[in-house]
C-alpha cells in the first residue's frame, strides 16, 4: 500500500490563485458593509442639509441603531448556535414591566428591581433553552409560545395590580440610585460641553439651558451596544466557546461526537439573548421613566432581520457579530433617515424589504464561495 502514498506536489494545480483584494472582500460581513456604504451614500446625497448629520441627528439614528444592535448581538449568537428566539420582543416588554412593578408598585429600590429582573429574565431564557433541548422541538415553536406567554403576563400583571397598562414614576424612584445611571445615564458630558463651547456642535440659544450643548452626552444605551458587540465578537471569534457556538449550530451531532457540550452552549445562548433583551428593556425604562405593556412589539423580527442582513445563516453555524451590528446600523439609519429625507414614512418598509432581499442574496452568494456549499 505504501506505493499509493506518493509524495504530493507542493501545490495543487487545481487551486487557483486568489487575488488579495478578492480574498479580503470575501467575508461574511461583506453584505453588511456594502449595505452600510450604500445607505450612507444615499442619505448623504438626499438628506445632507436636513440635520441628519449634525449632532442631534447623529445621536438620533445612532440611538435607534444601538437599540437594534443590543438585541441583534444576542439573536446573532443564538442563531449561529442554531436556534431562534421569537420571544425577544415579549421579553423586552416583560422585563420593563417587571422593573416597574418591583420599583414602583412594590416600592423596592431600583437597583434591586433591576438585578432581580435580570435574574428572572435570564432564568426564563434558560427555561426556553431547556425546553428546546429536552423536548427536541424546534426553538421556533417553543419561543413562539413564550412570545404569547410573556406578552400575556406583561399585560395581566399591571392590569391586576395597578388597573392600567403603563406604569410610570420610575424616574422618581430611580433618583439617586447607584445602578440606574448604568442604564439610563450619559457619559462624556464634559466633552460635549467643550465641543459646544468651541462652537463645533449646536448649543441651545435661549431658555433655561442657553449655552449648553443640545447633545449633552452619549447615552448608556449606545455604550451598552458597543460593549455587547465587542464582547460578542471576541467571544465568537477569539475563544474556544466561540468555536463551540459555531460547531453547535453547524452540526450538533458532529459537535457532540467531538466532545462539544452542545446543550450547555445552546442554553447559555438562550440566556444571553434574554440578557440582551433585558438590557434593552432596562435602558428604555430608565429613559422613558415608564414601562408599557406594548413595549418591544415585533422586536424579535427586527433583531432577526439585522442578523440576516449581517450575513448569518438562518439555519445556524455561520455568521458574524460585526455583520449583525452593521445590519442593525443599516436598520436604524434607514428608519430615521427616511424621516430626515422627508420621505413618506410608510415607504420605510419598502426600503427595508429591498435592502433585506439585496443583502441576503449577496450574502448567500458570498457564503457559497467561502464554504463550498452547493
Amino acid at each position, binding site marked *: *500500500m*505504501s506505493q*499509493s*502514498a506518493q509524495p*504530493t*506536489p*507542493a*501545490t*495543487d494545480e487545481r*487551486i487557483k490563485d*486568489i487575488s488579495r483584494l478578492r480574498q479580503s472582500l470575501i467575508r461574511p460581513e461583506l453584505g453588511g458593509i456594502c449595505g452600510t456604504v450604500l445607505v450612507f451614500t444615499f442619505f448623504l446625497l438626499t438628506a445632507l442639509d436636513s440635520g441628519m448629520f449634525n449632532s442631534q441627528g447623529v445621536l438620533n439614528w445612532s440611538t435607534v441603531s444601538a437599540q437594534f444592535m443590543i438585541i441583534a448581538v444576542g439573536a446573532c449568537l443564538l442563531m449561529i448556535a442554531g436556534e431562534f428566539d421569537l420571544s425577544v420582543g415579549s421579553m423586552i416588554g416583560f422585563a420593563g414591566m417587571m422593573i416597574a412593578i418591583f420599583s414602583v408598585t412594590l416600592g423596592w429600590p431600583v437597583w434591586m428591581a433591576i438585578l432581580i429582573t435580570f435574574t428572572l429574565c435570564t432564568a426564563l431564557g434558560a427555561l426556553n433553552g431547556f425546553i428546546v433541548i429536552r423536548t427536541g422541538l424546534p426553538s421556533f415553536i417553543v419561543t413562539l409560545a413564550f412570545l404569547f406567554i410573556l406578552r400575556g403576563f406583561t399585560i395581566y400583571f399591571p392590569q391586576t395590580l395597578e388597573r392600567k397598562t403603563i406604569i410610570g414614576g420610575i424616574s422618581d424612584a430611580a433618583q439617586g440610585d447607584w445602578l440606574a445611571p448604568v442604564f439610563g445615564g450619559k457619559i462624556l458630558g464634559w466633552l460635549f460641553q467643550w465641543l459646544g463651547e468651541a462652537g463645533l456642535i449646536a448649543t441651545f440659544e435661549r431658555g433655561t439651558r442657553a449655552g449648553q450643548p443640545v447633545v449633552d452626552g452619549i447615552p448608556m444605551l449606545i455604550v451598552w451596544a458597543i460593549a455587547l458587540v465587542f464582547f460578542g465578537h471576541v467571544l465568537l471569534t*477569539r*475563544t*474556544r466557546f*466561540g*468555536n*463551540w457556538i*459555531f*460547531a453547535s449550530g*453547524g*452540526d450538533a*451531532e*458532529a*459537535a457532540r*461526537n*467531538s*466532545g*462539544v457540550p452542545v446543550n450547555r452552549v445552546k442554553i447559555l445562548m438562550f440566556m444571553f439573548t434574554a440578557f440582551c433583551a433585558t438590557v434593552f428593556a432596562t435602558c428604555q425604562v430608565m429613559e422613558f421613566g415608564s414601562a408599557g405593556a406594548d413595549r418591544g412589539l415585533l422586536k424579535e423580527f427586527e433583531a432577526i432581520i439585522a442578523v440576516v442582513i449581517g450575513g448569518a*445563516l438562518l439555519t445556524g*453555524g*455561520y455568521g458574524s457579530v460585526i455583520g449583525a451590528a452593521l445590519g442593525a446600523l443599516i436598520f436604524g439609519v434607514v428608519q430615521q433617515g427616511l424621516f430626515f429625507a422627508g420621505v413618506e414614512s410608510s415607504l420605510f418598509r419598502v426600503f427595508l424589504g429591498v435592502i433585506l432581499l439585496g443583502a441576503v442574496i449577496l450574502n448567500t452568494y458570498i457564503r457559497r464561495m*467561502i*464554504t*463550498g*456549499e452547493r
Partner: protein
Amino acid sequence: MNTRSEHAPIIQMKDIEKHFGAVIALAGVSIDIFPGECHCLLGDNGAGKSTFIKTMSGVHKPTKGEIIFDGKPMHFDDPRDAMDAGIATVHQHLAMIPLMSVSRNFFMGNEPVKKIAGINFFDREKADRITMEEMRKMGINLRGPDQAVGTLSGGERQTVAISRAVHFGAKVLILDEPTSALGVRQTSNVLATIDKVRKQGVAVVFITHNVRHALAVGDRFTVLNRGKTLGTAQRGQITPDELQDMMAGGQELAQLDDALGGTV
C-alpha cells in the same frame, strides 16, 4: 503475519451481547484488536456492525460480555469516557462541519488556549499551524487553514477527521464506513490514510461492506452476520468470494450470483 499476536491486544471484546427490548442485536460477539493492525469488520446491513462499534465506543453498554482495554476491564459510561481512553470514532457523515474552517474543525472540542490578561483565548495561530502541518503530512494541500471544510472532497474530509483523531492521541480508531460514499480516487486516498495511521501503531477498526476495500488494507477480517461473528480470518487465508459469501450468509447470494452473472 502471526507476529502480531505476540503483542497484547489493545482492546478485547468478549462474548458481547446487546439486546434492545425483545430484539437481540448482538448474540455473543468476540473480537480482539492489536495495535498497528487494520481490523476489518464486515457485514451486510442489519448485521450488527453499528451496534457493535457503538458498544466499543461507549455509546451502548453491552447487555452481557466484557470489554478489556489495555489489559483492564473497562466500563464506558458515555462516548466521552471512551474518547478519553483513546478510542476515537470517525463517522461517515458526522465527522466534520462543512461551514467551519479546517482548523476550527480540526480542534473542535479540543481548542488550544492561550492566556491574555487572565482570560483564556482560542490560540488560533497555534491551531492554524498544527492544522497545516498535519494536513501536509496526510497529503492534503490547503489554500489556508481558514478554508472551509465544505470546499474539500468527501475523501479529504475523511482524511481530516482521521488525522484529527490520531493527532489527539487515538489508540483505537473506529472508521464507520469511511469509503461507502466516495469515488474511486477518493477511496484510495482514504485507504492510503488508513495505511499511514496503521504504521504509526494505531489500531484501526475499519467497518465496511465492500470486500475489495477491506482486502486492500485489512490485516484481519471479521464477518458479522445476524448479530454473530463467523470468526476472524487472517490476510491471505481468505478469498474475496469467501468473504462475500460469509457476509451475505452464503446460500442466498450464491443464487443471486447466478442471476446477476457473477457481478456482485
